[in-house]
């Protein structure tokens, strides 16, 4: 059992990517710096902040999530499944006469169909969010422990377009980073 838990943990252990991180002490500077880094042509970089910042998505050039589409498609699937399932259980496989109503009565089954829609849509959204974010992540690399309380960072991974460690270091310094380091994230 202990072995299983350990192998599960190691499977979930986040594999950090090497790259360059810059640290700022002010969130407005971070948004400005992110916009400049985007202008410099980087696409895969990430911003790390202890709280949500308005405008950081636009500054980093992060496109809108496609999760709404997953929600919509699974919601539609759930709806159709509900229609088929209520028909199959109540009218086809085990038909029961309830109060003399038609075997397949839409009015009675709309609550079930509605709940199936919500169930499929909600579970698929959460599942997709977990998958896309690569969760669960165990023991991820830490750039700076203060990033969860008072500091802000930008991180450019080495596989980003036009990556050059010295160039990124200089860029971060020019943008006012108080600290720049080669690290993993």
């Amino acid at each position: 059992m202990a072995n299983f838990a350990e192998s599960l943990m190691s499977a979930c252990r986040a594999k950090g990517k090497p790259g360059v991180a810059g640290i700022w002490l002010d969130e407005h500077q971070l948004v400005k710096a992110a916009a400049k880094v985007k202008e410099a042509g980087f696409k895969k970089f990430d911003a790390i902040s202890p709280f949500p910042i308005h405008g950081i998505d636009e500054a980093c050039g992060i496109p809108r999530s496609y999760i709404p589409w997953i929600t919509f498609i699974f919601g539609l699937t759930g709806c159709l499944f509900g229609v088929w399932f209520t028909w199959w259980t109540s009218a086809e496989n085990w038909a029961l006469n309830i109060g003399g109503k038609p075997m397949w009565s839409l009015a009675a089954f709309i609550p079930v169909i509605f709940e199936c829609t919500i169930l499929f849509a909600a579970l698929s959204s959460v599942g997709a969010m977990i998958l896309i974010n690569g969760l669960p992540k165990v023991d991820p690399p830490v750039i700076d422990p203060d990033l969860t309380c008072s500091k802000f960072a930008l991180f450019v991974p080495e596989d980003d377009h036009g990556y050059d460690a010295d160039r990124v270091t200089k860029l971060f310094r020019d943008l006012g980073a108080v600290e720049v380091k080669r690290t993993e994230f």
Partner: protein
Amino acid sequence: MAEKSVKQLAPVHFTQSNRLKTIYSIFMFLGLAAFVVTLITDKERAWHSYLISFFYFVSLALGGLFFTAVQHVTKAGWSVNIRRLVEAFASFLPYAFVGAIVLLLGSTHLYEWTHADVVANDPLLKHKAPYLNLTFFVIRLVGFFGLWVWFSKILVGSSVKQDTTGDESLTHKLLPWSVGFLPVFALSYTFFSFDSLMSLEPHWFSTIYGVYAFAGLFQSTMAATILLILYLSKKGLLRGFVDENHLHDLGKFLFGFTVFWAYIAFSQYMLIWYANLPEETVYYLPRLEHGWLAVSISLVVFKFIVPFLALLPRWAKRTPTHLAAVSILILIMQYVDLYWLVYPSLSHEEVKFSFSEIFIFLGFAGLFLFAVARFLSKNSVVAIKDPRIQESLHHHVVY
């Protein structure tokens, strides 16, 4: 921008264009003429038509007051820049009070329980007589409108006063008044809908009726607010105050209450369908035959399914033209909804609809536009000295 002080904001003035004045004057004239003509040819029809349009615009006015109260109760910051516009809707309430007095003149043509001989021969109506009698009806109607006008004077009056004094304590004082208004509104509007609409068919009853009416009220109020914002934006009056982020949140409300309306409408229908009791199904049966079936289906399709899908994507709530189209559809369907509640009591067999209904509606629309335009030209279009205005100036919707 972030450092911009509240003191630097100047009041925004709306001037009524001649075109607007002409439009609402013509509307009011057409409405009055159509009402008088219909009154001569068909009294019952004239009063039924009057009742729909009266209820429609009373709901919009109350919706404005309710929305204002909710913003104060929740201490909402995002909505400060649009609050004056919903407050303008509430300025119709004194006119609606007069409309309610006029409605009393037609009560014998609308409600069978007002006739003593009918009640005497009807055990059920006799049983309901302690509530459903003309004296108590008048007391309730006058009482409800008195309360609404009184609350609107306090809630809207203080907000307008703040424009000149800039007194922050007014905002804090409005909190308990708004908290008090909410239960008053819930009860009075429920019984107002029972009295004016449900008692058209006095043998039938539904305890969810008030909630159903409220769902339509909020849905149509949001649609009307969006249209008013877009009209004033086109005139350039809301530049720097209201942008697509505020529209987005109003669009979310519109979407949410579209679903809420369908939820309540279906809840009422399903329970009656399931129980299958004659005294309850009597309401739906006439609405599922003759021409009324088409009206019932149109409600499901155009008051729920179409707006639901049309408002689902994020861009839909941030695109003014799209949002305007959906709002207009919802405002039309709100009329169809009230028509569906009222007109079957006039005729089970025939779906009567012609210029008489349209013009009487336009008459009320003219009066409503007149009240709103008058209020907005007398006061600043934006509550510029509200202490929470900075939140609204920098409103940003991420999702």
